[in-house]
């Protein structure tokens, strides 16, 4: 029988002990005597969140296909176990073997959102690995970061030995091979890192020196050794159909956020919304072939026993064979009691037909993401969705029996004025009017329109990377103005408006566009008890403010300070294919309220064509 790292007493004291026992269906067991490299893959949040992440499932499967590599998983212990592990000095362990993470060759951490930074430090500390990369010795695992936040790794750069910039399916095996060689030839950690920096896409922070201007902005970032590249080039899968994909994903015992088969139909997005980082860093847009997806659907459902399958992409409606794929899934699996879930669909005749087939119209809601309240501002952000499209879509849906609508907006967008803000309420009211334009006997009770707004955070590698943020008070004022406007609407009883917390926004803002100086603040915040910052019940803004204060980091420098068009950004050393010139052009277009066509309508020369694949080479 499998051994466990934790005693029965501990497991029976903590919440959801099944988070820590491993042994899930399709988890991989290997004989340690037959592997050369042990890789521990980490999602620095609680099990249920981490297990829902597709990227880890892909890499876990990819690594374990190699006989000489054994990849295991670890997640953030929840606060109850965290406390016990500290008290009893229990080292953090991987789920499969239940062995301490510190005994592995690699610890790979996927970094999906800024609010997990303190959890990264928790994983390191509980693993008994020095938090700062410079303090690690030959016996410590190589700590690697990957994922969207590594497109500006600087605020956490000094906690990592290296970063993998780009899509994991490409050069990871080169890194593993290099490591094996280094291990066999007895070369030092430092030497290995220097060689690793020579692999395209690998960024070794300790091999670069950053200097600053007097005003605190970056002067330059230079390699400190020969053979270390000036620029780190994002790695991209050129053919998605050929790329590796898991046929037997791990099936958790406990209910996780994404408890279903996930089919990644496409990577990237043709739309070019100017606030969206994913829309830029995953360029060029690349789809998987219909045949491959059908085959994965069969195999993955069969191998997991999941009762639901979901399509994953940034914008499913732009996948060219979406109709064929959707009708195939409904035909083939619907009758076997498999639910089909289709997120990120544009509302049109096709999606309404599909939705009416796969869900109970009375219970489900329509979702629109206009992001901004007025057409003017939607042009600024390059969100192609027009009011006409929204209203027509809603009317068609209402005729089909729907009566619930969800609307997603952002507040605090560049150039946003009062009219744009009030426009959120006006748009919701107009949708309600569409509903009441239907004769009473054909309606399905009262309409419910729920609008919610988050506050905009400018992200690196977007045209809005030059944008300024607002103070928490200004964000709240805007939210209140929208809320007051909602209350003035004729159909206010059918409308509701919710908004997010502005404090998280500020912190995200600092971390998203931060530089190496911010690392001390992250460390200080963690040491003062910040953890699980993405969980509202644990987020402690006060502690963060103290940490910034104590480490001499000025929040406004990162949030509200206007950035010069020629400022060197901390993340400029990364080459994502999409050029800074393109971003500048798009920033200018935004100010001028000029819309840029999507990639299929017309190429805008963003630079991603250098990757020789995807939408850039469609006929």
């Amino acid at each position: 029988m499998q051994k466990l790292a934790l005693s029965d007493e501990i497991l029976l004291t903590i919440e959801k002990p099944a988070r820590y026992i491993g042994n899930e269906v399709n988890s991989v067991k290997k004989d340690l005597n037959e592997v050369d490299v042990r890789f521990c893959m980490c999602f620095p949040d609680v099990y249920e969140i981490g297990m829902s992440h597709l990227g880890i499932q892909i890499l876990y499967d990819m690594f374990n296909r190699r006989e000489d590599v054994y990849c295991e998983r670890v997640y953030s212990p929840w606060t109850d176990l965290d406390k016990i592990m500290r008290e009893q000095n229990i080292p953090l362990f991987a789920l499969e073997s239940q062995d301490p993470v510190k005994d592995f060759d690699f610890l790979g951490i996927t970094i999906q959102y800024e609010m997990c930074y303190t959890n990264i430090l928790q994983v390191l500390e509980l693993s008994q690995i020095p938090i700062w990369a410079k303090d690690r010795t030959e016996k410590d695992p190589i700590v690697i970061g990957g994922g969207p936040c590594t497109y500006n790794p600087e605020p956490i750069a000094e906690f990592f030995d290296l970063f993998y910039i780009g899509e994991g399916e490409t050069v990871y095996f080169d890194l593993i091979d290099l490591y094996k060689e280094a291990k066999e030839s007895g070369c030092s950690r430092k030497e290995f890192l220097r060689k690793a920096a020579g692999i395209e896409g690998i960024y070794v922070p300790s091999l670069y020196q950053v200097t600053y201007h007097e005003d605190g902005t970056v002067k330059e970032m230079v390699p400190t050794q020969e053979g270390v590249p000036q620029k780190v080039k994002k790695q991209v899968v050129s053919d998605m159909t050929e790329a590796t994909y898991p046929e037997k994903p791990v099936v958790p015992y406990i209910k996780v956020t994404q408890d279903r088969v996930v089919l990644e139909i496409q990577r990237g997005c043709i739309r070019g919304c100017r606030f969206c980082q994913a829309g830029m860093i995953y360029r060029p847009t690349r789809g998987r072939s219909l045949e491959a997806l059908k085959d994965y659907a069969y195999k993955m459902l069969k191998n997991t026993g999941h009762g639901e399958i979901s399509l994953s992409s940034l914008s499913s409606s732009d996948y060219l064979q979406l109709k064929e794929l959707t009708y195939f899934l409904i035909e083939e699996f619907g009758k076997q009691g498999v639910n089909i879930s289709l997120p990120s669909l544009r509302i049109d005749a096709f999606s309404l037909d599909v939705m009416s087939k796969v869900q109970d119209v009375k219970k489900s809601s329509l979702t629109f993401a206009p992001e901004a309240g007025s057409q003017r501002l939607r042009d600024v952000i390059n969100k192609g969705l027009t009011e006409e499209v929204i209203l027509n879509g809603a009317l068609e849906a209402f005729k089909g029996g729907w009566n619930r609508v969800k609307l997603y907006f952002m507040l605090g967008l560049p150039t946003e004025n009062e009219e744009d803000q009030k426009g959120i309420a006006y748009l919701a009211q107009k949708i309600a009017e569409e509903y009441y334009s239907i004769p009473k006997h054909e309606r399905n009770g009262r309409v419910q329109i729920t609008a919610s707004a988050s506050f905009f955070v400018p992200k690196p590698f977007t045209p809005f990377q030059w944008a300024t943020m607002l103070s928490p008070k200004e964000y709240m004022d805007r939210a209140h103005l929208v809320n007051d406007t909602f209350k003035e609407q004729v159909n206010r009883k059918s409308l509701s408006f919710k908004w997010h917390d502005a404090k998280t926004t500020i912190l995200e803002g600092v971390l998203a566009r931060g530089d190496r100086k911010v690392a001390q603040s992250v460390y200080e915040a963690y040491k003062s008890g910040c953890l699980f910052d993405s969980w509202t019940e644990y987020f402690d803004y006060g502690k963060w403010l103290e940490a910034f204060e104590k480490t001499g980091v000025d929040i406004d420098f990162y949030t509200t300070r206007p950035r010069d068009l020629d400022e060197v950004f901390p993340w400029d050393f990364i080459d994502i294919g999409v050029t800074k010139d393109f971003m500048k052009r798009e920033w200018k277009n935004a100010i001028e309220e000029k819309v840029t066509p999507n990639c299929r309508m017309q190429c805008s020369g963003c630079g991603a064509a250098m990757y020789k694949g995807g939408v850039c080479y469609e006929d």
Partner: protein
Amino acid sequence: MKIRMKFSKNGPLKFVGHLDIMRYFQKVFRRAEVDIAYSKGYSPHQIISFAAPLGLGVTSDGEYLDAEFHSVSSSREMLEKINEQMNEGIVLLEFKQLPDKCKNAMSSVAGADYRITFRDGYYEEEEFLEKTEDFFAQDAISIVKKTKKSEREVDIRPMIYDMKVQDGHIYMKLATGSVNNLKPNLVMEAFCRYLGLEHEPFAFMVHRLDTYLEKDGELLPLGSAGEEIL
């Protein structure tokens, strides 16, 4: 047709809760591609029900679940097919067809057998083993049952059908189910008090041996209601 299955749950699987075991089985049946029945509607689900929920940390060799099937092959073949999809620590032991009018597993449960093992480092187990007979011989064993609203005294002695010592373990047969339900931990808590000892909840490892229905005043394994499919 109605099917009753018996399974064991051992090892680390004891940390997987009742609801998650239900979801686990739904996925097992899908992977095994057995012809199980689904409810109608937009989110169809398998029609399965469990006999008596097992507490977290408790292992068992006598768990039961009922499910509705459209078609089946022999019990032996079905066991093989389903067990191929099961994880280490959880094994399907019986697959039997129930008569059409049979009460479901949950409402049939009347009793269960348990084995208590002493975990090292808490008590001198001899103290318990020597006194088990005396403890059981009492006319009444009253405990304070706490509910959200009130506390009241309950005599649990009538719900202990049998209690004895064998090979260093305590065995007990307890009332289980919707009418009367007594958990082994509660008996051990009362036992500690009887011995004048502080109750240590982690001192006892509980293992369920089998779950019973009542027929003509006799407790029989739940599986006895079904017939082997040949």
